[in-house]
């Protein structure tokens, strides 16, 4: 069409349009190729994973050998869910553990509810000061609940600061960082500790699966019935979490290039956490930054180590159900990934960092840094260039392949993997709904998600700070 008006410029314009389309399609193809490799690795990892013992067997076996764990639960304005969350933490099945709840300067009644419900009173506690954090105002405990200690501190501006205080206050060989508003399954600690028992001298960190609690029936801080949510946004996120945990993290863990362990559920060796100075409170992606720094620390010192992902232990978390909340969360995740990538950019393709530099950072570059930018450019330009007659139909088909159909295939394949290996969805109806979501999410939601990620890019460039709030319904009403 344009060539009709500018006949001399047509060749140049077509070449430019094809160059743009090539960049967009090749980037998409590289991403798809990486996902396919991840799928293959995840399949192998699931098929060859060690046999999963029942909780009772694990308890019997680990009762004398399992290392002590401090469960670190930072809480900021969690008055709606804190009591239920702490009750569920105290009911965990594990031979030797303590729960360290950090009230991070909440402005609501989080601390008061804890004090009233558990009969806490002010106590003294001898704590470490190796890791930096905002000042602690006091400690609370009760003889009736000896596993629980509540730390009341000045708000330090983020979860990282609260976790650092919790690390200093913990006294166990291992520390398990969780979100206070999440629910760990009863046997989650027994299962996530496995790499620390199997390879005690090598394992420095391990992460478990995160599942979405929206729609499930929760009673006394436990998920008693797994159900799918009614909200479309929550359903789509179930599919996303399946891809993130069952495919990506399992595969990256198998390759030993895991660059993130979710802040909602990760187990770490305390001495190594202290060695690296705990969490960094200057980034919103503190969970990713921590794992990347762990890799760097261990590799700089040429120490053998392993960072594992275990699919079986589950932490249930509430996901956002409004576009505003979800958009803020995704923009924050994007900003966190960019902050970590830029801070440690010298690790990218650096032979000193081995497969972490090549595969781990290659993935961040492709999927988190360039992916959203190029995909959004593709959504805007390719249909336009085609409509202007500068691109032939096959270019559009190629673009559709890398953005829609391959995406649908990856989601469906992840669901197949889930069904073959884990079977966490108990009803046929649930499987059918998720199969439909695997298709539908690529039409509309995927594009929206990329726009939120661009917002994250923008926030990163503007060095915007802060987490943003999320409206929570609380488990009782989930």
């Amino acid at each position, binding site marked *: 069409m344009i060539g009709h008006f500018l006949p001399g410029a047509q060749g140049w314009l077509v070449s430019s349009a094809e160059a743009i389309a090539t960049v967009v*399609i090749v980037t998409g*193809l590289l991403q798809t190729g990486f996902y396919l490799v991840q799928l293959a690795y995840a399949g192998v990892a699931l098929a060859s994973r*060690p*046999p*999963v*013992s*029942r909780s*009772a*067997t694990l308890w*019997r*076996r680990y009762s*004398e*050998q399992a290392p002590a764990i401090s469960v670190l639960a930072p809480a900021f304005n969690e008055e709606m869910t804190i009591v239920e969350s702490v009750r569920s933490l105290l009911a965990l099945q594990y031979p030797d553990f303590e729960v360290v709840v950090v009230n991070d300067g909440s402005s609501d009644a989080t601390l008061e509810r804890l004090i009233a419900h558990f009969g806490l009173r002010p*106590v*003294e*506690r*001898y*704590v*470490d*000061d*190796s890791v930096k954090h905002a000042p602690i105002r006091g400690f609370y*405990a009760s*003889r009736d609940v000896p596993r629980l200690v509540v730390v009341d501190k000045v708000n330090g501006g983020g979860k990282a600061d609260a976790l650092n205080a919790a690390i200093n206050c913990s*006294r166990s060989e291992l520390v398990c960082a969780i979100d206070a508003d999440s629910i760990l399954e009863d046997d989650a600690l027994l299962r996530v500790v496995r790499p620390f*028992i*199997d*390879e*005690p*001298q*090598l394992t420095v960190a391990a992460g478990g699966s995160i599942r979405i609690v929206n729609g499930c029936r929760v009673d006394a801080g436990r998920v008693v019935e797994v159900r799918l949510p009614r909200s479309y946004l929550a359903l789509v996120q179930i599919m996303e979490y399946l891809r993130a945990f069952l495919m990506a993290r399992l595969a990256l863990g198998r390759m030993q290039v895991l660059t993130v362990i979710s802040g909602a559920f990760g187990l770490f060796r305390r*001495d190594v956490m202290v060695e690296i100075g705990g969490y960094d409170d200057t980034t919103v992606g503190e969970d990713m930054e921590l794992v990347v720094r762990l890799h760097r620390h261990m590799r700089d010192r040429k120490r053998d180590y392993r960072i594992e992902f275990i699919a079986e232990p589950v932490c249930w978390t509430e996901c956002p159900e409004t576009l505003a909340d979800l958009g803020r969360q995704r923009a924050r995740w994007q900003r966190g990934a960019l902050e970590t990538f830029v801070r440690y950019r010298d690790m990218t393709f650096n032979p000193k960092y081995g497969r972490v530099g090549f595969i781990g950072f290659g993935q961040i570059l492709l999927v988190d840094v360039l992916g959203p930018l190029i995909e959004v450019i593709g959504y805007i330009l390719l249909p336009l260039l085609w409509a202007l007659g500068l691109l*032939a139909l*096959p*270019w559009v*088909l*190629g673009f*559709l*392949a*890398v953005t829609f*159909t*391959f995406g*649908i*295939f990856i989601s*469906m*394949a992840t*669901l*197949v993997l889930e*069904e*073959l290996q884990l079977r966490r969805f108990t009803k*046929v109806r649930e*499987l*059918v709904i998720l*199969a439909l979501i*695997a298709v539908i999410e690529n039409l509309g939601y995927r594009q929206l998600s990329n726009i939120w990620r661009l917002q994250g890019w923008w926030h990163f460039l503007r060095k915007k700070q802060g987490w943003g709030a999320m409206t929570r319904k609380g488990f009782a009403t989930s």
Partner: protein
Amino acid sequence: MDALVALWNVSLILCSLGALALVSLIMARWLSARAEQRRLAARRAVLPVLLGNDERLVQGPTTGAAADVAMDLTIELAELMRGSDGDAMLRAAKALDVPRHLERRLRSLAAQERLNAAETLALFDDHAHAAEQALDDRDPAVRLGAALALAHREEGPEPGDILRKLRAGVEEHSLMLVPLMRDFAARDPAVVAGIVHNESLTDEARLSAIEALADHGHAHVTRIVAVAAQHSFPPHLEQRLIVALGRTRHPAARGPIAAAMKSATPLVRAAAAEAAGRAGLIDMAPELRAMLSDNEWIVRFRSAEALFALGAAGMQQLRAAAGHDGPVARHAARTMLAERAAG
């Protein structure tokens, strides 16, 4: 252009294959949901037989789906039932021919099933030998599970053979080697003492034997201490060694514990403090007091805990440190005293 069209076609083919696989799985799930009803009915029929404590209920060996149900139930119940009830359940399972089915399951493709079968077979006196096959399993977790299940049996395989098959310390680094050694020690402590001295074995295997013997009376303490004094373990194993020496509660452990207190590795010093407390080495209270000034919090904390464990002598040192020592030790002692007084 052809490549782009091919890309589109490949993506469509993959999508179709994915959809086909999903539809097949959904159909399979639907069918298995119907089969599940039959399985539940079979469970309801078999459960009273296994729990009934009444062999008259047993109608004879099971076959087909009922055999699978009987096997699964036996595996589940074996974990939950002990003593006379457990024995009665195993007798009923034997009458249902469960051990023979379990032996077949040892050849399953799924490691999970082989492990369950080996663990349960080890409970049947007449069929435990079949579980020994699992010691040669291709999956290390199955081998270790079978070893743990067989270790306590008097007529079980020789500990040396089991360790060799597990490739302890070479391929198998699990902390579960310690309970394995404990079961060996319960059978014959002398064999485990032999493992401690066997220099052809790895450090990890020997250390696991030391940890097991540490809980097994005083008969072998001097041997353990001799190995601890002569052999140099890497720091991550030395920690475990020192804590094990503390568990012996024997004065002979004093030398290695005192040496570990001067280690360059903080976690070894912390382990030494813990061991001194556990062993009740009252004469080491002054050294523990000095460790309240250590640069590392974990060492100071373990030292204070050890002083509490030493009773009056330790408390005396803590109070003295709270009043007279340098600021670091004073803070540690004062805070720990206040914490314990409140707790």
